[in-house]
């Protein structure tokens, strides 16, 4: 597996398709234990990111990630904006200068992204947030490489673990025990992000 700028762009495009398609669904996840805007936030942000990428000309994945980061940071708002924005920013920094990312390099980028999310959100696993998808998925990728079918399975499994958790970070934390029984919205959008990655890599 290797990933170049074009594939990085495709990844974001594919992710955007998913966020547009699942705008209502993501929003509905955010309603019972949040404020009902996660689908709106993600679809707004990725739509803008794709628009931005369309206008650009990229020679490294890092440049792609940087523009995605800046767009998400400046267009999403809420909790997910700075979190996904920081993720892509750290990914950009960690992969700077490389025209093509091999598995090791890309995993380094994803690890940096995960660290960024954890730092920005002051969250760790088990708090019913997107970290509960990012952490196991990145760990799994590091150990197993980019076997795309299994990546999808792992990401979905991780997403589902958030269902029974009691939230201690984000808006869902206000519902304490009552937050259990609902899948986390940000975990789900993180799942879509990895699903889009799997699809793009599967097409290689």
């Amino acid at each position: 597996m290797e990933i170049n700028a074009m594939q990085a762009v495709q990844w974001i495009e594919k992710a955007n398709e998913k966020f547009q398609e699942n705008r209502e669904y993501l929003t509905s996840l955010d309603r019972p234990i949040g404020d009902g805007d996660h689908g709106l936030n993600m679809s707004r942000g990725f739509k803008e990111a794709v628009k931005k990428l369309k206008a650009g000309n990229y020679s490294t994945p890092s440049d792609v990630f940087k523009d995605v980061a800046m767009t998400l940071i400046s267009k999403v708002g809420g909790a997910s904006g700075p979190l996904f924005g920081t993720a892509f920013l750290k990914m950009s920094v960690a992969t700077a200068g490389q025209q093509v990312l091999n598995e090791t390099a890309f995993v380094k980028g994803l690890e940096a992204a995960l660290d960024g999310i954890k730092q920005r959100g002051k969250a760790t696993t088990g708090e019913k947030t997107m970290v509960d998808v990012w952490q196991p998925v990145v760990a799994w990728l590091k150990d197993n490489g980019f076997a795309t079918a299994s990546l999808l399975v792992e990401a979905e499994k991780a997403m589902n673990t958030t269902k029974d958790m009691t939230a201690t970070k984000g808006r869902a934390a206000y519902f304490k025990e009552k937050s259990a029984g609902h899948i986390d919205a940000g975990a789900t959008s993180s799942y879509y992000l990895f699903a889009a990655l799997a699809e793009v890599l599967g097409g290689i």
Partner: protein
Amino acid sequence: MKKILNDPNETVEDMLEGLVLAYPEKLQRLPETTVVTSKNVPVTGKVGLVSGGGSGHEPAHAGYIGKGMLDAAVVGEVFTSPTPDQVLEAIKAVDSGKGVFLVIKNYTGDVMNFEMAAELAEAEGIKVEKVIVNDDVAVEDSSFTTGRRGIAGTVFVHKIAGAKADEGAELSEVKRVAEKVVANVRSMGMALTPCTVPAAGKPSFQLDENEMEIGIGVHGEPGIERKKIGKAAEIASELTEKIVRDREFSGEVAVMINGLGATPEMELYILNKNVQKILSEKGIHIYRTYVGEYMTSMEMAGCSLTLLQLDEELKSLLDAAADTIAFHP
């Protein structure tokens, strides 16, 4: 969804245009931003005060711009924190060299976006301090969790920090009084109906005709407890008890009865009658009462109660002159 709108996705843009058109002598919008400031920023020799958050809470926060309160409000999408670049624009616009103070409601999104903006501003050499408001006693406080939400008590922070800044106080002094308010203010809300985010088009939750939610936030989140609608006296008692159980109040307090949107003033005054009765039975003296819509949740029916423990310093800052659209001392 029954709303007066053009494009539901352009709600915030349309609102901002309508807002600055209404008060051209008081407010201005920074070009190509969602930042509203007073006309005379930066004010020489004064710490700049910036607040903001998602929209849908009007008159918060732009209604509190003006002499003696905020210098700028950063407006996000409905119920969604504004982005760091916008907050940065606000910080830059209000800094007169004396530093900028941020009043942030305690939501992960707001905290992260404002903090990123503060980092960017500091990188540009601007002194920035902040306070995080967490007055909502519906949510338990704990060092392991996100902590409490910030709701209507934020308006008292704007007023008192704003009055201090207006005196020409240093950034650290503004921060001190803001933290003093946060330490002394508690709120609790309830709702009778949900509200609808325009771009989502659907109510945030469902409530039966005879139900109310206790412990509601201001983003259309469901509350902490659902029960049969009580009389005003019961609602007053439930909100007040929850607040005074969290923190002891005594001597003189300020009371805010805040309408969430659809609840008529008539009902707020009825609630006020019951709240005042309870407080006076507890020997708590009411120095000032504010009844109205201060921090709303669009067209949600319901209200919140806020108590602020006062001392001489807070009393004089609360009463200091202010010239804003929505708060009148």
